[in-house]
């Protein structure tokens, strides 16, 4: 694309002053603010993982002392869960895309949206303060009475950080729900919404209903710590299991906050690169809602060996099994979408296909954990660690990176280098499996999680895992490098380099501040792709190319 003179007006060049960013209520700029902050947190959280994976290369504690080790895995958990995974897709891609996907100019409450970024940042500052003021050693789960009575680290500073950040998720959820209900463009019925919007809607439901319970549990820990009021510590007359019930009532649904938006990204990417309408739109849409609702009824599966009643265990086991059904539907439907498609394997598609494989493994190992007797053996071992990393890293982080690559041309107007994209996607896939697959075996062998030192027979598998982690680390640094590079040197993307459907692709790249010059009117279903058309067009291109070659050959002969 050749542009002469001044570049067209867009949200990036509207104003260059720092204030125009820090006080912007434009959902796209807020998304970029989130992108920068969560990237920072991702690499801080990743650095802690590098340190403890290095420690675990040997059975003895020779790199750091146990206190430091405990603080490292705690910070890894807190930062990755609350400051990276939960905001990742909703706050970056959701913020950027939801208004554009439904044909709106902004979210329903632009000022609240900016406020939620500030709240997130203040929470982040507290958490970093906890880190530099000596750290926290309770694990991200804050189990009582250890957190409320016994730990003498900066528990309250970290808990306060999480407490504050919770409000930013509540506000984001609220904003998304109201926006989806009230601001859809003419013709955009509920069943024409992109599945990304459906999955973020389901996520918002969890954010609004679940987060307050987490806030309450952390507040109760604070009350017990400061005022010695007996809530969780039996020595003061409390019940330690009460905390686990409250904590998991939020944190299990929160696990679905950390996967549902990823599922939304996958539906967008797969349809585009298979040039097919998604298979079973309604099933996928409703399975997101089903997962969100069932997610509130399964918290007790974290407590099968905690001393809760055997019958409670049975009920929770049963309901947890039901979650497998909507998850399986999604996997089968995505796979069926590929059937009779016209498939190309660009970077976002590689991430999406990788996601399906890893999510399938994460989901199936979830069945092991929902099965009472098996959970007794693998609970609190590396099996659990492997399982939730397959969901959260193999699932969510893959989806997040796939989404970032897919919408990067829209967000920045630039293309990333495709070859590097594919190489790093493959590297992340292999690095990930090498890191976490051995941990399933370690878990069934009985290696407990959160162990600073371990018996010698576990060393081989731990070394494999650490080797994989270093590959994974490099895999994550490469996109950071080339994406930043592409901002300046990347080829201009044009408005729709993937020839994707969806309203966000109908406007210019980067989009203008008001998203659309004219409010769009929706007249077709979501994902109106056609594999046959794509093939026909490809044939035309091939013929054109062949003709070009012939002409070239002729002119060469003439010479």
């Amino acid at each position, binding site marked *: 694309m050749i542009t002469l003179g001044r570049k067209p007006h867009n949200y990036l060049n509207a104003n260059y002053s720092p204030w125009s960013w820090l006080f912007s209520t434009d959902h796209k700029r807020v998304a970029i603010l989130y992108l920068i902050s969560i990237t920072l947190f991702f690499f801080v959280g990743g650095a802690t993982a590098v340190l403890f994976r290095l420690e675990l290369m040997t059975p003895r504690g020779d790199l750091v002392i146990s206190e430091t080790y405990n603080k490292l895995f705690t910070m890894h958990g807190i930062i990755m869960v609350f400051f990276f995974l939960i905001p990742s897709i909703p706050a970056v891609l959701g913020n950027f895309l939801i208004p554009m996907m439904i044909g709106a100019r902004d979210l329903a409450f632009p000022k609240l949206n900016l406020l939620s970024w500030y709240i997130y940042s203040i929470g982040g500052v507290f958490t970093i303060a906890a880190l530099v003021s000596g750290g926290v050693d309770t*694990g991200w789960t804050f*189990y009582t009475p250890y957190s409320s009575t016994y730990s003498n680290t900066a528990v309250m500073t970290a808990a306060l950080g999480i407490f504050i950040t919770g409000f930013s998720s509540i506000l984001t959820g609220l904003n998304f729900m109201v926006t989806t209900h009230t601001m859809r463009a003419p013709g955009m019925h509920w069943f024409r919404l992109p599945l990304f919007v459906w999955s973020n809607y389901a996520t918002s439901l969890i954010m609004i209903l679940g987060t307050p319970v987490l806030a309450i549990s952390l507040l109760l820990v604070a009350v017990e710590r400061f005022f010695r009021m007996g809530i969780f510590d039996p020595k003061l007359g409390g019940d330690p299991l009460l905390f686990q019930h409250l904590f998991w009532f939020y944190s299990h649904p929160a696990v679905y906050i950390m996967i549902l938006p990823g599922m939304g990204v996958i539906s967008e990417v797969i349809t585009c690169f298979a040039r097919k309408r998604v*298979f079973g739109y309604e099933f996928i849409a409703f399975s997101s809602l089903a997962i969100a609702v069932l997610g509130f009824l399964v918290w007790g599966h974290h407590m099968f060996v905690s001393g809760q009643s055997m019958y409670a265990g049975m009920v929770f086991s049963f309901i947890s*099994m039901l979650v*497998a059904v909507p998850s*399986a539907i999604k996997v089968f439907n995505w796979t069926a979408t590929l059937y009779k498609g016209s498939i190309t394997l660009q970077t976002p598609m590689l991430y999406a296909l990788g996601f399906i494989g890893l999510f399938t493994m994460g989901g199936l190992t979830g069945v092991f954990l*929902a099965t009472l007797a098996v959970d007794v*053996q693998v609970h609190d071992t590396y099996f659990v660690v492997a399982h939730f990393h397959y969901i959260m890293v193999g699932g969510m982080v893959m989806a997040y990176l796939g989404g970032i690559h897919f919408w990067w041309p829209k967000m920045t107007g630039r293309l990333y280098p495709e070859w590097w994209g594919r190489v790093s996607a493959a590297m992340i896939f292999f690095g990930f499996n090498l890191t976490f697959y051995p941990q399933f075996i370690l878990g069934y062998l009985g290696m407990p999680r959160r162990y600073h030192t371990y018996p010698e027979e576990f060393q081989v598998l731990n070394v494999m895992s650490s080797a994989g982690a270093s590959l994974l680390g490099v895999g994550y640094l490469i996109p950071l490098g080339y994406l930043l590079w592409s901002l300046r040197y990347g080829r201009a993307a044009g408005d729709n380099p993937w020839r994707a459907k969806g309203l966000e692709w109908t406007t210019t790249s980067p989009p203008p501040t008001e998203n659309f010059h004219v409010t769009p009117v929706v007249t077709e279903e979501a994902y109106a792709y056609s594999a046959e058309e794509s093939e026909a067009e490809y044939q035309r291109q091939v013929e054109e190319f062949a003709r070009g070659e012939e002409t070239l050959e002729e002119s060469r002969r003439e010479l």
Partner: protein
Amino acid sequence: MEHEFQLFPEQASSYAAKLDWLYYSLVGVAVFFTFLICVLILTFAIKYRRGSRASRGNPSNGNLKLEFTWALIPFVIMMISFGWGTRLFMEINRPPADAIDMYVVAKQWMWKCQNQNGKGEINELHVPVETPIRVTLISEDVIHSFFVPAFRVKQDVLPGRYTSIWFRPTKPGTYHLFCAEYCGTSHAAMRGKIVVMERHEYAAWLEREGTTPASVQGRLLFERFKCGDCHGGDASDDGPMLSGLFRRTETMRDGERLEPDLGYVRQSILEPQARVVAGYQPVMPAFQLSEEQIFQLVAYLETLSAQTLKSNTLPEELSR
């Protein structure tokens, strides 16, 4: 405890093989579906790559029958897994009546094990082979978890409340005991050994160690704290008699009916006013006993339960 590389955990209890059947069946299911999905994805990605000659006619955007089928198949598998897992879970939650009792007190960062018939051990527990063992657990501080991978059993250890677990070792040897619930700084060092011995060796070991059984130590405590003064069994006594305690149902002053158990005895010693048996005044003072002492006292009370209910069957030195 092997120090070599292994891929599968050792089976050292009667339950281990049963759980492994379920586990490896689930591994089979997981491998099958992972392969199925991967093969389908690869096949489609190759067959329907852009420019391939495969037919794209009549694309389908959904098929209710098909979708219900692939909702139903996982559902059926889930239900089988649920049923199978629950049956085994009930088994490990219900100790057989002839199980030998062991008591374990967990604290940051050690296991204090009390064998019913003798020695108190630190970070070690000796048990005879082919004998059901019931371990009763309590913590002095934070939550810990008693985990013996070779037996496939795990149970959280709570402060202020008893939990229990049972197993039947089948293979003499030494096995890991891990604390599986994160409990603070030296969590990873809170490891112990379960030593499974042939029965005759175990008997010889008890003999050799020559220590007093828990019940005898309990009797000494019973004497020291003069429990028999009020709980001896005379009608004029201030408190309910303790012999036969675990075979009765008691009615509390507030009308609650309960079958006295370990937890009730512990509460009655530490906070005697909490639940008082109907017909008695709340006059008992609190006793600050350690968790081990409570275990010893209870072991002694168990021996009383086995006897007739008359107070004159109490050891002579206890009766007034």
